[in-house]
């Protein structure tokens, strides 16, 4: 716990952390100071003037809370009549040139202007003169579409491109009420984090081409998740909805604050990876090219396992720790070789030191922790020796060309537990549809040795099974997630006081000896 100081808000003493501005310090104890331009990741700019608060006996007596450090003994006035009037007045001025096109605005329902209008606004418009007109649909590139009329020129997007991505594509041009956010002519946004400006925009000025007009946000169900796009493990909110007679569909991923992992942001590739959860899925179990009920297919698998002399099992580096221990236990039971070979998931040089990692696998550290061999030699030898390969969703097409793959597997029967219906599952003798990461609960270890858990968010119509369940049905002794988690504790002493559902939201940092196991 950081040092605290005591100050007064509306005459009531509150204890707040030191070293913060008034918005954050007072906000942390549940008292909101309205603000549009301030964002904790971008610092204070002080242009919106919504956060003006009174300081009793202060010089000056009126200060922007975003620029004012909390100090002991400060007497902050928030509900004094003159402060409430300022909030109402500034709100009115924010709105006079605002198009108020909420019915067709994507931001409606999560818009600061709407929220503040209800809290601090006045009901009637006094605008009897024509509004300023600006551009309504500017394609800024990278899937960002800008509406200048809705913009409150808070400059969050501009500061993001300057301070976070350091690419500086955006600027505010012109002065006075003609000021507007724009790109330089012919130089669109060109960075891998562009869509964060849509989240940062407190109003509906920055919209995502991908999400525009797809859903009203109040219909979206929100569930916490972990992005599986790379080894960083950015915390996300999975926003999904099941429309009448339709499947449960994910409409967007948005970053969720985790200071020790991703902060406030995520990359565009991860953000748009939600599409893979919706599209191209393997929807039914297949024997050869024939669709069969899952039970029949599993029975066929059991027969294949019994008949096979030697079995090789392959894990995906995207599997959760629970799935990995379940499959490891299955391999031991079947006396099968187990591999996590997946060099194709690594894109050398793609990482940028910000959030994007070279390794596009979410849980390679898990494979290392469980001591699962990941070498090419042992995998290929195991496959050549085996009559049967059980592939738990490892996308071998990332590592091998089709011809290489056909050659490698020419004498081996293949059972695949797959999320997607693609070239790989088409090549398999038996294909079992399994759940993607948005559909099951599990845990991961990211590239900084932080263990994070996530819960299933989406329930698809085709009811794909968890890989852990498939492993159990094929003979793994670890039958439930509880048993799998108990097994995990043998590897991770940090888990000794936790259950799967009690791991803290910000994740658990592995202790040094465990981290050494992971990196070994």
């Amino acid at each position: 716990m950081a040092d605290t100081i005591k100050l007064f808000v509306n005459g009531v003493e509150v204890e707040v952390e030191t070293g913060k501005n008034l918005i954050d310090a007072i906000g942390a104890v549940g008292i909101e100071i309205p603000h549009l331009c301030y964002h904790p990741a971008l610092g204070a700019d002080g242009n919106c003037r919504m956060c003006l608060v009174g300081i009793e006996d202060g010089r000056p007596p009126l200060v922007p809370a975003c620029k004012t450090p909390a100090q002991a003994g400060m007497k902050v006035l928030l509900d004094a009549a003159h402060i409430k009037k300022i909030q109402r007045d500034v709100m009115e001025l924010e709105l006079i040139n605002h198009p108020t096109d909420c019915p067709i605005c994507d931001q409606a329902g999560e818009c600061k202007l709407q929220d503040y209008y209800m809290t601090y606004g006045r009901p009637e418009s006094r605008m009897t003169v024509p509004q300023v007109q600006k551009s309504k649909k500017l394609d800024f590139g990278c899937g960002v579409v800008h509406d200048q009329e809705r913009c409150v020129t808070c400059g969050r997007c501009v500061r993001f491109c300057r301070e976070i991505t350091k690419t500086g594509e955006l600027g505010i041009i012109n002065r006075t009420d003609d000021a507007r956010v724009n790109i330089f002519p012919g130089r669109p946004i060109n960075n891998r984090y562009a869509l964060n400006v849509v989240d940062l925009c407190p109003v509906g000025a920055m919209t995502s081409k991908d999400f525009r007009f797809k859903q009203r946000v109040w219909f979206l169900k929100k569930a916490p998740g972990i992005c599986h796009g790379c080894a960083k493990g950015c915390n996300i909110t999975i926003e999904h909805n099941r429309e009448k007679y339709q499947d449960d569909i994910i409409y967007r991923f948005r970053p969720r604050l985790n200071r020790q992992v991703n902060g406030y942001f995520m990359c565009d590739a991860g953000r748009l990876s939600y599409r893979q959860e919706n599209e191209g899925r393997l929807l039914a179990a297949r024997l050869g090219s024939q669709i069969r009920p899952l039970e029949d297919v599993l029975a066929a698998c059991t027969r294949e396992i019994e008949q096979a002399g030697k079995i090789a099992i392959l894990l995906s580096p995207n599997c959760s720790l629970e799935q990995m221990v379940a499959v490891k236990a299955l391999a031991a039971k079947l006396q099968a070789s187990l591999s996590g070979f997946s060099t194709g998931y690594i894109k050398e040089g793609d990482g940028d030191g910000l959030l994007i990692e070279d390794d596009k696998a979410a849980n390679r550290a898990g494979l290392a922790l469980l001591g699962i061999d990941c070498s090419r030699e042992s995998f290929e030898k195991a496959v050549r020796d085996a009559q049967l390969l059980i592939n738990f969703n490892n996308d071998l097409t990332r590592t091998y060309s089709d011809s290489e793959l056909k050659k490698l597997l020419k004498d081996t029967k293949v059972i695949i537990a797959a999320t997607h219906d693609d070239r790989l599952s088409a090549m398999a003798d038996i294909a079992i549809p399994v759940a993607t990461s948005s559909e099951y609960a599990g845990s991961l270890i990211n590239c900084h040795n932080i263990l994070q858990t996530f819960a299933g968010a989406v329930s698809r119509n085709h009811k794909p099974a968890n890989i852990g369940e498939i492993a159990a049905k094929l003979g793994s002794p670890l039958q439930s997630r509880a048993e799998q988690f108990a097994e995990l504790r043998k590897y991770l002493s940090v888990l000794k006081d936790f259950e799967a559902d009690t791991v803290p939201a910000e994740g658990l940092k592995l202790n040094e000896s465990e981290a050494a196991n992971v990196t070994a």
Partner: protein
Amino acid sequence: MEVKILSAKFKLKNANKITVAKKHGAYATLGKLFAMKPEDVIEEVKKSGLRGRGGAGFPAGVKWGFLPKNTGKPIYLAVNSDESEPATFKDRYILVKDPHMLIEGIIICSYAIGSHETYIYIRGEYTTQVRVLQAAIDEAYAAGYLGDSVAGHDFKLNVTVHRGAGAYVCGEETALLESIEGKKGQPRSKPPFPAVAGLYGCPTIINNVQSIASLPFIIDKGADAYKVYGTEKSPGTHLFGISGHVEKPGMYELPLGLPILEVIDKVAGGVWKGRKLKGIIPGGSSTPVLLPEEAQDVTLDYESMAAHKTMFGSGGIVVLDETVDIVALVKNLIDFYHHESCGQCTPCREGLGWMLKIIKKILRREGSMDDVLLLRELCDNIEMKTVCVLSAACTMPVRSYLDKFRHEFEAYVQDASASAQVKQE
């Protein structure tokens, strides 16, 4: 009434040339200056009571005292020559007529505050001024008054002229710094004040041209000689630009503290064409207007102006005769400040545009009394809610016109309702 302290060399031919200027005493104070300790120079300026001539009237010596000691960072001097306030035309005379007085003042100030780099921020529209000033600076370098060793003393000083691109707001001292740094000219939030974190994050003193140009006299003749002029709290002389409906508009150097009506009558020849006085803008367009009856006991100094709820400002006096349409004047005024709003803070960015549209509506005789009241209310809602005082520079005078000439606004909206009635019938 006129005095010749700052304007002593204005009538001389070629006083902008260093040879002529030196013959008439330019750079003569430097020997005395370098014999003094810097803190004694600051003390002398404090004693003189010299107040910042940019408009705010903050005591110059006190401002210099805000510089933190021993930060290990360079100290900058920025000379504000943006002179953009409508009705203000004083610094331009110094820049063209006697630039060496300014350079000498810069040397004095730099020595006092321990600065070795000066930026003169000059408005982009001042093309002649920038040419003459730069030529004078070049002469001063050649003559050894600027550069590695100022007048042979162990003191280094470089002066750089930075031209603005035509933004009123860049006369605001932190916007000026942003502009010098190559950024969009938008005022910074204070604190930190420039004396602590100014140009490139270093301690910076920003003074107006006329303030700096007053220094050679103060150092040469002493603070007491300077205080002979003016009042106790507003000592010294000031270059007043008198314009508008007077017989002899122009720039006049006067001691502070003279009665404003007497100055208009005796110095500027009185209201022109024998017309009656309607009002006086005392110190640039952003200062609240004075009615003739209010002006009776107003004197040209900071205290008297404040006592009459207006401001001394930049010394740009505008005389309005009885023919002036106040509503049209207010439209002109809002038009200017709206155009010059940097667009950073919500109240100023959105509010001034709204005010402009309302006053245009009234001027078209389409307004109602509600519009007049709204305009008046907006003055209160916008003022002092922003990073800088540009919005106040608009709302303070507009409020004064609305309060003091309400009947003229009412006449416009009554016309409007009458013509609306005619249309209905």
